[in-house]
């Protein structure tokens, strides 16, 4: 059963960068609640602040003002936060250290725990994680990150999540660097994580089409602010905010007219 207590609660959360005239509010007074075991998608154009919001939830970037609660408590210790909350980043190639073998890097993700599982258990869990993303462990044995394809690398990042089994996953544009086929694959793995591991997922993307496919709720972000939120069918069926309407219009649909010529 999902926990009654929400996973994340943000109240008037802001984050700005720079000083003086060049001060930019990347996240501007955002308030949102993310329930336990829910897939929430944050959709917005480039530089709307969605990635900064993701990194704030992850605890990598501290907010400048406002309150952020994880399961009712503020994030004080990053390490204990990361035992519960883990990310998938956008560019799989820049995510792994190219000087170490991929398997040893997957193994080292257990470094976040105070008490590591035994060596044998780690191996078993790495194998399980790899199989969960349809990779035969021998396929990557002895290989370095640059020896794998983009699709394989993106799945390595997901394998990490299957291995660590955090309670919350923050997926920051995991689909923007891969093509359509792999994209559908990744979304299926996100669904699998939710179904099998009861994970709460915050999914960041600029493609509202993907959002509709996986999410329980969608938030539309524009210029640092959340402008609209709700279930997918409500957002696509009866959008209220002009930015949402704009976003929906700009996506090339298969059936609807897109640009008049």
């Amino acid at each position, binding site marked *: 059963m999902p926990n009654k207590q929400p996973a994340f609660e943000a109240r008037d959360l802001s984050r700005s960068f720079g000083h003086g005239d060049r001060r930019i509010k990347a996240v501007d007074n955002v308030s949102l609640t993310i329930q336990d075991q829910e897939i929430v998608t944050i959709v917005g*154009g*480039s530089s709307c602040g969605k990635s900064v919001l993701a990194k704030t939830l992850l605890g990598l970037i501290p907010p400048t003002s406002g309150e952020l609660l994880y399961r009712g408590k503020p994030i004080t210790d990053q390490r204990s936060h990361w035992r519960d909350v883990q990310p998938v980043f956008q560019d799989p190639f820049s995510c792994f250290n190219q000087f170490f073998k991929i398997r040893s890097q997957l193994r080292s993700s257990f470094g976040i725990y105070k008490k590591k599982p035994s060596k044998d258990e780690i191996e078993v869990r790495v194998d399980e994680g790899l199989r969960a993303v*349809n990779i035969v462990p021998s396929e990557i044995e002895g290989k370095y990150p640059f020896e794998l*394809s*983009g*699709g*394989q690398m993106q799945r390595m990042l997901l394998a990490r999540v299957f291995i660590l089994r955090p309670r919350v996953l923050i997926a920051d544009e995991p689909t923007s660097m*891969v*093509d*359509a*086929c*792999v*994209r*559908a*694959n990744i*979304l*299926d793995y996100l669904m699998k994580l939710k179904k099998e591991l009861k994970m709460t997922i915050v999914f960041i993307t*600029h*493609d*509202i*089409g*993907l*959002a*509709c*496919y*996986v*999410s329980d709720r969608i938030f539309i972000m524009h210029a640092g602010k959340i402008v609209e939120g709700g279930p*997918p*069918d409500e957002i*696509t*069926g009866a959008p209220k905010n002009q930015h949402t309407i*704009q*976003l*929906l*219009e*700009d*996506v*090339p*649909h*298969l*059936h*609807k007219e*897109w*640009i008049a*010529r």
Partner: protein
Amino acid sequence: MPIFEVNDLHLHYLTRFGAKIHAVAGVSFSMEQGEILGIAGESGCGKSTLVNGLMGLFIPPLYPTSGDVRVGGESLMGRTPKDIRENVLARKVSMIPQGAINALNPTRKIKHLAMDLIKSHEKGGNKNEIQKRLYDRFNLLGLDAERVLNSFPIELTAGERQRSVIGLTTLLDPEMVIADEPTSALDVTTQKAVIKLIFNLLDKKIFSTMIFITHELPLLRHVAHRIAIMYAGQFVELGTAEQVVFDPRHPYTRALMDAMLSAEPGQAKKETKPLEGAPPNLAHPISGCRFAARCPSAKPDCRINEQSLRIVGERQVRCDYAE
């Protein structure tokens, strides 16, 4: 007479360890004046290699194996990169690249980049006249010509940069434009703006014939007249946009269409059928159908018989079992 003809083009490149990768293996098509052809396929299918081949630009490690590319009847094969750069690029065939940031020399203003381009292709010419031409063209692109032309690339937004790149690549009114994933790095709003800009140029007859390369089939359906689906260095299906998108016949095209997700009500219930596996390794000879290993409806003889493009109901499909 077709303006652009590609005849059984085979291209390969050499890896540093001497292996030959046959990235393009037998691509043929022809285009009439005013046509837009879309080419789609996943990464690693040979799209980018094909682009270089279509311009006749062979810089090691890329080499032509066989076949011919003709623009307005003139062959581009067997010519030096210098010759191609001076006499073909920008005037006959022009390319809109993917990353606008890397395409512009960061140390020069847009104005100077444009001047360089004109001067290197046109002898003489009045400076004021060229200047006026530049302003007219950039105004036509919907850009603030005065500001953009006097800016360094870094001072422009991503959208402005991509527009400027398009402005520069079409400055000499090329006969043929190849757009290599021009919108893949952009968000949907900027993407739409760029496509509008390209349509605007087409309407104004700045250029009329275009090859548009992307992996977004929904986008191609709105942009292209005909669509070619590429897999492992070959076209597997070539038909009108409507035919390919709404009634795909090749199993690979079907798989691509099944993987497409769009923002329409009711999408949440849609079942996607992700395509597992990876394209074949092009360093080794492949027997039989190149898609057989991943094909959901592969028959035993698919792995033995090489497939050739055949006509199936007004379109070309590379599958013996397509109906």
